[in-house]
């Protein structure tokens, strides 16, 4: 037998190449698939095309008032005209630069992980985001200090309020959640019991019952004369609710840390709190970034429930204008606008968490 000469490899048959192959494999791989493709495609076309036309091509974007709109296409003028209200609620127009500035600071704290900056910058931005920003933001938005005119919380509203609720809820819930998680894993039965009862209680009841309690019943539980701001009370409710969920996420992270880590830290002579702070929590929190992101996203969506207790968050603001007799039939536009805002934020957050996850990955496994 002669020496084996490798045959030249041939190019694949047509069905195995390029767009034809893609179509065949992805859309028409069997007769059943082909029928499904055609049917689904048909319905997609017949619904999407008019929808896109309604929302964009024949929609009215500019004009003066309701007269410029036509009933068969979207009327985005409505959003434009009420934009300020949707963003800031009743916040005095002249002072709206203050929340805007706070948002800019927020963006500065949040954006670095997306940019090609050294990770140190991202870390400092993150630290600012959870320490300096709440203070600066509060001073800016609420006023009353440094000669800034004070704006009552009842005037806060719109997207601004939504963001404040979510942001404060997260920042305040995380430490409480960590404490609860540690408590739930404690060896002291009473501490553990208290934490379990607390967590399970908050997780079992619907948020609106909690908001109802916080907004109208809380003063009943407090000594006579003690009362605090309605927004603050809603925040307390949201925070405790969120903390219970956070605690369960963090507990998952704590459980994932191998025993050896605890023992090695113990053998080095580190006490309980140092062990937790220096060794266990940094690792556990890193593991649970995706879990935290998920609870944050659901909290962000849940903030809309404050509408039921009479706060004008984004949804509340938009909804309250829908009954304006001057604007008929803008319901779809209004709801779509809200949906779009929420979608952008939620989707953004899930991407953001992926980014953070990568950045925190210092394990550098080989």
């Amino acid at each position: 037998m002669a020496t084996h000469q490798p045959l030249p490899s041939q190019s694949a048959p047509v069905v195995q190449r390029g767009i034809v192959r893609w179509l065949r494999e992805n859309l028409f791989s069997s007769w059943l698939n082909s029928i499904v493709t055609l049917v689904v495609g048909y319905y997609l076309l017949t619904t999407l095309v008019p929808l896109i036309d309604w929302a964009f091509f024949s929609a009215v974007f500019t004009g003066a008032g309701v007269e410029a709109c036509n009933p068969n296409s979207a009327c985005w003028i409505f959003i434009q005209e009420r934009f300020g209200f949707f963003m800031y609620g009743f916040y005095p127009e002249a002072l709206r630069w203050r929340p805007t500035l706070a948002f800019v600071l927020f963006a500065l704290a949040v954006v670095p992980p997306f940019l090609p900056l050294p990770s140190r910058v991202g870390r400092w931005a993150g630290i600012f985001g959870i320490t300096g920003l709440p203070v600066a933001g509060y001073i800016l938005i609420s006023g009353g200090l440094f000669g800034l005119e004070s704006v009552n919380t009842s005037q806060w509203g719109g997207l601004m309020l939504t963001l404040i609720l979510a942001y404060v809820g997260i920042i305040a819930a995380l430490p409480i959640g960590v404490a609860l998680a540690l408590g739930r894993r404690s060896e002291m039965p009473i501490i553990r019991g208290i934490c379990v009862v607390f967590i399970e209680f908050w997780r079992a009841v619907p948020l609106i019952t909690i908001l109802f309690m916080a907004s109208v019943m809380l003063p009943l539980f407090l000594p006579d004369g003690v009362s605090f701001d309605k927004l603050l009370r809603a925040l307390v409710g949201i925070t405790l609710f969120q903390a219970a969920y956070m605690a369960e996420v963090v507990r998952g992270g704590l459980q994932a840390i191998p025993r050896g880590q605890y023992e090695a830290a113990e053998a080095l002579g580190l006490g309980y709190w140092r062990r937790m702070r220096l060794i266990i929590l940094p690792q556990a929190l890193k593991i649970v970034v995706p879990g935290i992101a998920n609870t944050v996203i659901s909290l962000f969506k849940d903030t809309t429930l404050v509408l039921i207790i009479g706060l004008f968050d984004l949804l509340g603001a938009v909804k309250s204008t829908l009954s304006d007799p001057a604007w008929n039939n803008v319901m779809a536009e209004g709801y779509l606008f809200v949906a779009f805002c929420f979608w952008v934020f939620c989707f953004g957050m899930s991407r953001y968490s992926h980014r953070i996850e990568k950045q925190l990955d210092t394990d550098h496994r080989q």
Partner: protein
Amino acid sequence: MADDGATLEADVIGAPVASAASDENIIQVTDLNKWFGEFHVLNAVNLNVQKGERIVVCGPSGSGKSTLIRCLNHLEAHQRGEIVIDGVELNEDVKKIEAIRCEVGMVFQQFNLFPHLSVLENCLLAPIWVRKTPRSEAIDMAMHYLERVRIPEQADKYPGQLSGGQQQRVAIARALCMQPKIMLFDEPTSALDPEMIKEVLDVMIELAGSGMTMICVTHEMGFAKTVADRVIFMDGGQIVEAAPPRQFFTNPEQPRTREFLEQILQH
């Protein structure tokens, strides 16, 4: 590895290795071509296997060994050429594919036992649902094969409770329970620790001795020497050389084969 071969040969003295293969071709592969996208994995492969023949396939990683045997029971579809198994030509016809899969048992590198079923139930699944064997009969058969792979006592355990070698032996028993005419092995020992390799190879050698048609992708050259009727060397999606083991190991025709053997026998 060369040493291993020696030990193995010693082990099988008891089992007469039947090398009398009948003339009938149970597998006929003609001009088999397969592409993954633009990548030509199998290039004009021709292979005839007679009933009772034992074939070992070797070759460097990525040469298409797994793909070849996976084509034989249509876990991969081929794009050109003809595969005829036991007289039935393999094409996209689902009924034929199922019929052929009943005749062809396969053992994977990663065992792929069903973790939610006990060892016995793993073995009963196919006979009951495919062959429609009565349960009691199927149990008898399963226990028979579990005895043959030497773990009847593990029948009621779950795969997760067994060692790797035991799991692979269950996988072999599971395939045998369908009483296939052909057995395909895709590197059955390469996920195992050294001690366990031996216990699995022993079972395979015994099986080879019983006259089963076998195609086995493996790098266990000792095993090849002991039981193979033919060793096939693949490279770049082609069959480079096919020869009886004695000739293959001592006097390979192709330089490519020699090169490969040097590498593999070194360590």
